[in-house]
């Protein structure tokens, strides 16, 4: 029993990262950024990320959902059922005000880090 507790708590983060192929924080950032333009359903988010990264970031689509639920639990996105463009039922995710703020923070820190890394790569 003791071991199960351990694997649940310490193992969860590992699982998320290995399955998605992107760093966990980064996936959150990408989702938030995609949702900034318009509310979207799960596969739409996956398509958008793939499309905008010129297929370079191919995420395991499944790992999207735990991330979405997590963002929702933190109040950064909300969700509601609606009808998709091809007339199917779909759950749409929408950025909240808190999510918008979070996105700014995350984006700023990402910019800083990537600029720093780029600087190192270019000049070192």
């Amino acid at each position: 029993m003791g071991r199960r507790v351990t694997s649940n708590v310490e193992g969860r983060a590992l699982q998320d990262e290995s399955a998605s192929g992107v760093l966990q924080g980064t996936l959150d950032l990408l989702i938030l950024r995609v949702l900034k333009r318009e509310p979207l359903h799960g596969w739409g988010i996956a398509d958008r990320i793939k499309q905008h990264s010129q297929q370079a970031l191919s995420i395991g689509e499944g790992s999207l959902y735990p991330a979405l639920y997590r963002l929702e639990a933190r109040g950064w996105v909300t969700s509601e059922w609606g009808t998709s463009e091809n007339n199917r039922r779909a759950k749409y995710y929408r950025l909240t005000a808190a999510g918008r703020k979070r996105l700014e923070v995350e984006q700023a820190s990402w910019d800083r880090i990537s600029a720093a890394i780029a600087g190192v790569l270019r000049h070192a």
Partner: protein
Amino acid sequence: MAEEIRLHLEQRIGEFIAQGLTPEQARAAAHRQFGPVEPVKEACRDVQRSAPWLESVWQDLRYGVRSLARDRAFTIAAVLTLTLGVGLVTTFFTICNAILLKPWPLPETDTLVTASRGVSPAAYRYLRERATAVDLVAIADICGSSIDDDPVRSSFRCVSGNYFDVLGVPLLHGRGFRPEEDILGGPVPVAVISYGLWRDRFTLSPDAIGRTITLNQVPFQIVGIAAPGATDKPDKRLPRLWVPLAAYTLVMSDHREFLVDPRRCCVGLAGRLRAPRSQPVATAQVTALYRQFRGNPAERPIAITGTSGILQPWEKSGVALISLMATSLFLVLLVACANTGNLQLARGARRRNEFLVRLSLGASRHRLVSQLLTECLPLAAAAAVLSLGFATVLTALLARWLMEGRPDDLGVDLSPDWRAALFTVSIVGVAVLATELGPALRGTRRLVPIGRPNQAPLRARSWFLIVQVGLSAVLIAGASLLGRALLHAASIDPGFDATGVARVTVMLPSGAATESRLQTLRDGLREALIAAEPSLVAEEGRVESRSKVSVSTAPATVVARQVSPNYHALLRVPLRAGRLLRKDDTASEVVVNEAFAREAWPGRSALGQSFDFDGARVVVGVVGDMQPTRPGARVPPTFFERGGGRSLFIRNEAAVLARARAVLATLDRAAQVRFSALSEDYEVGLADRRIGVALAWSLGLVALAMSAAGIFGVFALVAEERRREVGIRLALGAGARAIVRMMLSHAGRAMGVGMLAGFVAALLAAPLLRGYLVGVGPHDPIAFAVAALVLAGAAAAATFVPIRRALRVDPAVTLRAE
């Protein structure tokens, strides 16, 4: 969520089919792109199940319950120990709560007030008529009256006419008093009876209203029946009967001046504020009015306060006792905590390997500590519930015992309320946290590698042991001292021989009872008895206590007793010097007791000495000290002068008793006579102290039993841990003595230190008990020796089994087992 994922997959399959794949290929591709479905669902559920910490708390709780159920011995021991410790403290709190904290059991307690002191009935009427901030009621308990022909004397409550209306004392049937039934000089004989009296006397029959009940032979008409438990202020007993204050003169015809004389004391004051929270206004107004009434602007103020959290006058004397009790109970609780702490340590040591494995697998220490603490919640919950139950049962038993089997008549509400529940929960919480946090932090330290014996818990264990043994030593030493004082009190000579001496009380039906008529009867009885049996009758008159007597080296306070000449002979008080009083002695010739002689004329003969007490007195004799009522208490300096007329004492012989009855019958048909053994007074004095000593010993023994269990646990653990070492030593030829020494070297030292520290603390604290130790010094060597013996005996008993188990270790078996 499953729906959402299914829709996602269907969408993808549709896309792939549109790209020209077969349905099977499309399904496979969609799943490949999505990844494994079930873990995703699981991960989503984890997030969804609300906040992760709540999830882990829930998990820990379930885990805690399971592991406690598995560790049954530990669980039972810990819960019982905590229940005992906390339950005792909660019982005490419940009683204090009922007496001190709960507001009076009346409606609308926010306007209910009481006054800091009582006033004379005359002053009460003055205040009631003039006070505008508060409606005042008067309450006076009058003792020693007989209801109907009940031989047991009970008290009744005289209350002002507005009492029931203003306070709202709940009634079951009928009505309360009307203001016009309480008019000075126009007493109306009406009464409200208590539920208890209704039950006992009228078997709950509803036609009791309108019937009469007699109070000291005076008939009163019953107008109301109070609800069960109805009273105003909490008191030991519920009131049995209420009558209007003005009716006091009907019952106590001797004391008519009580209602009118402004110097008479007292009726208690209570009341209701006309505006909420206006206590300061009411205090100022009532004080001003009272000063006006007394014509003294410096008169002490009368504080008008709420009824919660105040000390009743009858509780003030108990404050020292209450704090002593609280301290002892707190010590018992500490012992219980130390015991639980030790149990937790032992359990932690057993689970050490589990934690080390988890730590090395990457569990955070924070996570483990919070898990351990959460695991204790079920333990704490069980202990809290049981403690409350234990305290409820114990208070009920106490009430039954205190009320001699009639707990319904108890005047305080001992039922547990939210205060008691809050108290219990916080005490249990603090106790569990205090005892578990240390072992939890210790048990989850990363530094100690697996397999190496962990020294730290041993040291902590020793500390817990020292605390336990030390506190038990304090409690046992205190109990031992009190026991010694009781034995001393019971064994000392009271200075007289009370066996066979009875106090004679002459009674009259109270309507007819006037002091002069009683005096006539007493005089007649005495004359007749003295004429018949002069040597068997003695009497006592006025007893007066006064300070400042003009003797060269004056005792601080002297007591003057008027006695008949054969008083000392009858009570067999020994004559030390000179002679006893004679019939023809005048007021100037007195006999003093030894205490008087010793204090006034130390080292000299008292005979022939003189002093001034309402005139010059000459000492003609010295008698031994006698202590008639308070066993073991100091005998005050006393002198005896000729007199009598109040109490009559006789040798309790059948012939004398019969003659007394016969004489009285010829004097007055209505008169009754009662004989009460003089030794009863003395026995009552001893009984109260026996209860105190029994209580002290029970607390001490409870603590000792817990400590013994703790010692046993520690030694058993040491024996278990060192089984292998013992085996090797035995195999190498060590004798039993060496093994015992090895076992004792650890916990034995802690035990010794604990005992020593406990006795030092007890020696330092013993002077606090001085008020209860008569005839025994606070550092009485015998008392301490007894305590040491008891402790050593308990320690020996607790260590015997584990040590024997260690000695029985078979080296061959033990060594092969590894």
